[in-house]
């Protein structure tokens, strides 16, 4: 294993600087997404409570969609907090670079990717249910 050179560090910090900038932008996006899901969930609960008979083709009650939105809101919130922590810790590393610091940052990034994976799996499940619903409606 060869050791880190100054040039390696320069390239690593450049990549991390871009990642930090993207991270801060993603915090803003995460807040918007979390807010949207958190707003949609109670709307679906209210809609499901008062007007389920208006959508007879729905294979499940409207409040079920509220539960899905609520889960999305929680996952979005966790990812947003993780992104914020990634961005702040990357900023610290950029000010005080060290191999331990880089390992610490990469641990945070790993947690972020795992949470993004959870979001992806849930998104896939939701998408499959949507497809089945659309095909069922189209075949009726």
């Amino acid at each position, binding site marked *: 294993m060869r050791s880190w050179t100054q040039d390696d560090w320069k390239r690593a910090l450049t990549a991390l600087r871009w990642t930090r900038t993207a991270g801060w932008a993603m915090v803003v996006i995460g807040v918007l997404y979390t807010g949207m899901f958190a707003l949609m969930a109670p709307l679906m609960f209210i809609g499901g409570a008062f007007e389920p008979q208006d959508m007879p083709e729905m294979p499940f009650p409207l409040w079920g969609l509220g539960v899905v939105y609520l889960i999305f809101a929680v996952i979005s919130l966790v990812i947003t907090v993780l992104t914020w922590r990634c961005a702040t810790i990357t900023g610290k590393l950029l000010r005080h670079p060290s191999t331990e610091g880089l390992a610490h940052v990469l641990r945070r*990034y790993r947690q972020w990717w795992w949470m993004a994976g959870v979001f992806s799996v849930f998104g896939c499940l939701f998408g499959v249910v949507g497809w089945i619903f659309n095909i069922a409606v189209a075949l009726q």
Partner: protein
Amino acid sequence: MTDNPYDAPQAQPGPPQDADAAEAIIGEELRKTSLGVIACLAYLLFWLLGSVGMGLWLLVSGTVPDALTGGAANPLAGMGRGLGLIYLGLSVFPMAFVLAVWFFLRALRRVASLHDPGAVLQALSWQRWLWLIPITLVVVTIVLLFVFMAFVIIMGVVAGGAG
């Protein structure tokens, strides 16, 4: 203190005493990242499949089924081919993201097998581009939203003028 450590003589970067141990941890962290990235790749493939499938279906059928848009008030009924082309065109995004994630995964594998700072740098570089994905998506969504709103407004004005 300046943001760039190379401009600040008091904050010169460099490996500490136990650099070997830390580098081993860096490799381990990146290796463990693969699982989450594979899940994201699955989602992107799902998105790509849905986008291409829907695009081809609309292109071939030439019409948007009433069941998907609300029956009698289906404003998209005759626009199947155009919408199909739009879907296929937008498939460029999931395709590019799938490729980027694929290269990131390959870089992560190299980190695990080579134990080389060069491999770590490659992985960090791909991760940087991948973190830009959500920003690109949101910008594209906002632009599309504005285009759609403009379309709806124009259609409304035309319909109002004809009435």
